[in-house]
């Protein structure tokens, strides 16, 4: 039986190796034809399922032990821009719009950490964002160093880093204070 449509008999048998794990997929001709991207081969449900169940447990307390604290937030939350619900995302594996990344920020953060191994973009950025984004990246980096210096009780270094941060923030203000991603509200 086809793993994807659960209707037709499976006639194409695929294997893919992901993170050293073998994943097998048995598909009918029709579904096999639709699969092209490597990321699609192992169905997203497979990749996400474990992680999303973990999120459900952590945030919504679905499988919390008796006496555990109440769920952190109601599970029926929907994206303020597109109306996508977390449950729909869970079954479909696709977000509805850019604001979904904020509407489900905690879940997305955990998901990215698990699927991508990181939550911080290091690549190119739109030119229109100008120098602001570079400054912001530097400030984030310096803040992390500052935190470590304070933990290490290296106060001289901490004072130097704090001055650097202040200077960068002042520079950014002079540039027009271009915040690459101002808090985005509902656009429609």
């Amino acid at each position, binding site marked *: 039986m086809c793993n994807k449509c659960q209707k037709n008999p499976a006639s194409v048998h695929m294997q893919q190796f992901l993170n*050293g794990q073998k994943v097998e997929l048995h598909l009918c001709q029709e579904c096999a034809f639709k699969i*092209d991207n490597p990321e699609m081969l192992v169905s997203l449900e497979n990749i996400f399922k474990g992680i999303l169940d973990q999120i459900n447990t952590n945030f919504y307390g679905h499988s919390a032990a008796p006496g555990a604290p109440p769920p952190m937030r109601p599970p029926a939350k929907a994206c303020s821009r597109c109306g996508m619900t977390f449950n729909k995302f869970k079954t479909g594996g696709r977000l509805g719009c850019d604001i979904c990344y904020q509407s489900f920020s905690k879940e997305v953060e955990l*998901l990215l950490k698990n699927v991508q191994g990181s939550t911080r973009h290091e*690549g190119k950025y739109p030119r229109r964002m100008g120098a602001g984004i570079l400054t912001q990246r530097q400030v984030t980096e310096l803040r992390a160093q500052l935190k470590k210096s304070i933990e290490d009780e290296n106060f001289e270094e901490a004072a130097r880093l704090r001055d650097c941060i202040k200077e960068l923030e002042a520079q950014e203000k002079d540039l027009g204070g271009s915040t690459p991603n101002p808090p985005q509200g509902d656009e429609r």
Partner: protein
Amino acid sequence: MNTPWYQEAVTDENEILSSRVRLARNIKKYPFRRKLSTTNANDLVAEATDAVTSASGFFRPLDIGGLGKTEQTVFLEKHIISPEFLNGNLPKGLLISDNQNISVMINEEDHVRIQSVKAGDCLENAFETASQIDDLIEERVEFAFHTDYGYLTACPTNTGTGLRASYMIHLPCLSKSDMPTNVLPQITKFGVAIRGIYGEGTAPMGSIYQISNQNTLGKSEHDIILGLQNVTQTVIAREQHARQKLLTSSKPYMEDLVHRAYGVLTNARLISAKEAMDLLSDIRLGYITGILDKPRPSKHIYQIMMEIQPGHLQRNAGTEMTEQERDITRAKYLREIFEQ
């Protein structure tokens, strides 16, 4: 250079046939495809098409919906479009360069997917091209971008750089030895995915594989490409080692394999795509190792592999064919191309 990548001689020279880069982007003012209305989709296609064509003079819009099924299959076989792109009824757009090496799919899983392919080992170059197109489009539309997460995509597996870089590689000797049991499980631990480009899993047709990065976030585009290059070089070294081992310990077997493949391809009257692909793979190996001393066919081996696929065969014949008719036509095409 204005030839399609598969017509370049370098595709016949070593393990790497081509380098491919895809960038995924979404336009901020529209929701992602899952939440896109038909009206929104129409506006999106018009706006993105306009941005791409005005960004660069060399793109030509192509009405993919208006093409017949055979012509659509040809685009799939050339890997210019994805099966996902043909799904659903929402409006979509396709823009391609004259030599078809650069293309932009509008309203695939993401609003904009820029693809750049080059012959041989040329990944940075392919990325540079895609990135330039990205910059030019971005001057005209605002992409969804987050300071921490980078470019926002419909699927979180593409978030960040939106970059999928891949090599198409030919691994005939590894396929015959320890590819499925040893090599695949090992290399995929290093953040890459590997799969057959035609056909199934560990024993793909023609021993042609696509190797690509899995993660798109947390590393710069340059580092993602570098990581993929390193793993690919390791795989190639394994292939060359396997080849050397076969050549020293089993030369008669190799010679028989290659000449037998040539014999069948130049004489068969009925041949399936799978059998033909596997024989072409052995012949490619024969030319590279010098075992095969016959004149080279008038087209490069990968181009022949593509042209014996169902879509290409039917397009070139100008008619739809049954499986048996295709097998006859394929056999005839192969005899002619090797006898020229």
